[in-house]
């Protein structure tokens, strides 16, 4: 779990300053999210695809990830055409499919995919610890950054603890079913994980105290934006301006 496959690589996007990636990624997403004109999606789509190409991410895996999100969007397609008011296209007893609903669903689909592509290209190409330090450098509260780090670090430990417990259940013939024993066993499992996580948190705190922790995290990370980074940011900002222009002019 959390293999960070995309963060390994040596494309210009991978080498970009993580701070600029975060800022430009956020700016870009906001602009895409508030756009409502088809024409405005054009530069956004080109930018996202362009970044994707430059980052040279494995297309199959990218496609799988897009599929996951589009699975959720599918529900919008099942709901919106029936719930948004407007010109009726079909009528089926009490069910009315509206043109406006379909258009809205299409808008949301395109926007989400553009944002997702851009974020995959920008953020998933950044190793988690660089991302955390970039957040800190951008003024995200220290506690949030620490939570981010610890979550990442101990998610694996808790996950392997979960797997150990699961294995212990399996070797004693446990099979999940729809019965009280299953529910009770799962409750024990979750309870056990909570207790173990709590105890581990206590031990980690002790280990940190032993190494002189005094409530402050010092970071080794240093960032420096280079010419390449500036050029990239310029392209992203230019693309964003183009979108704003096409949206509101």
């Amino acid at each position: 779990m959390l293999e960070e496959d995309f963060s390994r690589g040596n494309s210009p996007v991978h080498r970009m300053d993580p701070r600029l990636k975060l800022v430009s990624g956020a700016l870009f997403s906001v602009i895409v999210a508030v756009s409502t004109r088809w024409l405005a999606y054009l530069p956004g789509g080109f930018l996202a695809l362009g970044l994707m190409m430059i980052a040279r991410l494995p297309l199959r895996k990218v496609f799988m990830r897009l599929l996951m999100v589009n699975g959720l969007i599918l529900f919008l397609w099942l709901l919106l055409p029936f719930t948004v008011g407007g010109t009726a296209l079909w009528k089926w007893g009490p069910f009315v499919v509206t043109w406006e609903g379909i258009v809205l669903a299409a808008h949301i689909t395109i926007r989400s995919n553009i944002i997702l592509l851009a974020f995959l290209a920008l953020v998933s190409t950044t190793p988690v610890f660089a991302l955390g330090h970039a957040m800190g450098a951008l003024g995200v509260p220290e506690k949030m950054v620490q939570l981010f780090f610890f979550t990442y670090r101990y998610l694996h430990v808790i996950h392997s603890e979960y797997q150990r417990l699961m294995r212990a259940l399996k070797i004693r013939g446990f099979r999940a079913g729809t019965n009280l024993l299953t529910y009770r066993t799962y409750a024990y499992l979750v309870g056990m994980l909570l207790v173990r996580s709590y105890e581990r948190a206590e031990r980690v705190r002790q280990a940190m105290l032993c190494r002189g922790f005094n409530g402050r995290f010092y970071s080794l990370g240093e960032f420096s934006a280079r010419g390449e980074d500036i050029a990239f940011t310029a392209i992203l900002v230019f693309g964003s301006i183009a979108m704003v222009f096409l949206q509101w002019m």
Partner: protein
Amino acid sequence: MKNNDSLITLEKVSFSYNGQKPALKHVSFHLSAGEKVGLVGPNGSGKTTLFFLTMGLLHPSSGRVVLFGQQMQREEDFRKVRQNIGLLFQDADDQLFCPTVLEDVAFGPLNQGRSKGEAREIALQTLRSLGLDGFEERVTHKLSGGEKRLVSLATVLAMKPQVLLLDEPTTGLDVNTTQRLVSILNSLDLAYIVISHDMDFIVRTTDKAYAMVQGQLATEEEVVPHTHVHAHGHGRVPHVHTHSPKDGTR
């Protein structure tokens, strides 16, 4: 520091975990500079508790803890001297909490007020001295068990402590990594206490051993029944061999 020779002194220290039967009963213990001591005993006999009391992670219900000649009373007292004692935890996953090896090893030096450059240099140098070159950008949770243990040791050594407390350092290690740990410990010019169930390891890394039994410390001077048919150091301390004596290696 008033007394340079005396590193750790526990005087009649008792402790019990909230209301349960005492984990430690009037334990007195002394460690001087350069001493290498083993601590053996059954599970739950209070060995780890002894370490935690020494580090001020737990506080005794009675008795005194004296570190580097100074009596420890409050958290602030411990905070000042704690960084001179390096505690290696039983579970390396507790000790390594930073995303990368370099950051984890540099964590201690940074807390000691070193600059980023200095901390990085100390971390790299410590890793190199343990034969862990090229580990700096590795992700901690993806290390193997043996690697985690050695990196944990690096995080502790990077703080340049005067004493090491090693809590079952060989648990889960293969023969090669254990051997590597033995060589590292023997090359260190440091006082340390090792908790281990591996008597072989104790013999190869320490000069004397104490036995902990039900919260009490038995020194080597005490007579402990011993019926082994082979000979080696610490024979009077109750212990279990990890391999039979006839296989040649000690």
